[in-house]
């Protein structure tokens, strides 16, 4: 699966750069979001067929929240260190880190409150975070724990990376992943401006 993932991604990047004209790209985007919704529907069918997953999850209970909490702490620590390397102010590096992979939104918010360059760094950082997640999810689920596969995905674990997490893990992890993504996604528009305004 790892090779299939890598090959589809690379073929996409190359054809986006060299081959496909603008108008096809924009319709590709709407096809992609249609495909994504179909995929999520199919992931949902798997969950519904394995109803016991919801009972298992009840047993896990509030511990589900440990996943987004850990991801928030991990991202902020990582962001602080990265900012330290490049000598950036810590409020800026924290707010870049709190995009959690949601590049469109965090890029737009930071462009608005801090200017184009910070917005572009936030945008690119979170594009690369999503790429990093796509490339590492199956490896992490295999070598570490299934739940760890959610970590790099951050806010994207409820949409773009959810089908990959479903492929690499089990139904219970998929539900945790979805909850994690929904919580982190709702926190992005709050944390990015909040952390930027820290002094």
């Amino acid at each position, binding site marked *: 699966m790892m090779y299939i993932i890598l090959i589809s991604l690379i073929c996409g990047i190359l054809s986006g750069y060299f081959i496909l004209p603008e108008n096809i790209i924009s319709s590709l985007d709407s096809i*992609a979001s249609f495909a994504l919704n179909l995929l999520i529907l199919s992931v*949902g069918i798997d969950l519904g067929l394995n109803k016991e997953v919801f009972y298992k999850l009840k047993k896990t209970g509030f511990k589900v929240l440990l996943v987004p909490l850990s991801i928030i702490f991990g991202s902020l620590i990582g962001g602080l260190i*990265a900012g330290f390397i490049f000598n950036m102010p810590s409020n800026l590096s924290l707010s870049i880190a709190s995009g959690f992979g949601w590049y469109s939104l965090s890029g737009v918010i930071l462009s608005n409150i801090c200017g184009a360059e910070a917005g572009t760094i936030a945008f690119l950082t979170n594009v690369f975070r999503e790429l990093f997640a796509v490339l590492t999810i199956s490896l*992490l689920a295999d070598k570490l*724990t299934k*739940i760890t596969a959610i970590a790099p995905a951050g806010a994207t674990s409820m949409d773009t990376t959810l*089908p990959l997490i479903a492929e690499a893990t089990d139904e219970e992890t998929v539900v945790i992943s979805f909850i994690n993504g929904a919580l982190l996604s709702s926190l992005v528009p709050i944390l990015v401006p909040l952390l930027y305004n820290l002094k």
Partner: protein
Amino acid sequence: MWLIIVSLFLGVVIGILNFIPQKYIKYNSKFQQIGVVLLLFSMGASIGSNKRILNNFSQIGLKSIVFAVFTSIFSIIIVYIVSLKLMGGDEKK
């Protein structure tokens, strides 16, 4: 975001109510694999054709990659420790 939530719940309901005949269910995972390939291809295509990414890569590409890798790796470390110590790890292992 709402469309995603609706799609997922619709799927769960279809699954619970067993709307899909048994003989088609095995195609669900094949469908997911094909869908993932399409999704990744178009994800790649929109990155490859995005001028904002290409034009800025030489100046802030390195910064952004370091940010992406550090935020991801520290998330991985903490989630891994927490999932082992507090969530019981993977039961099968």
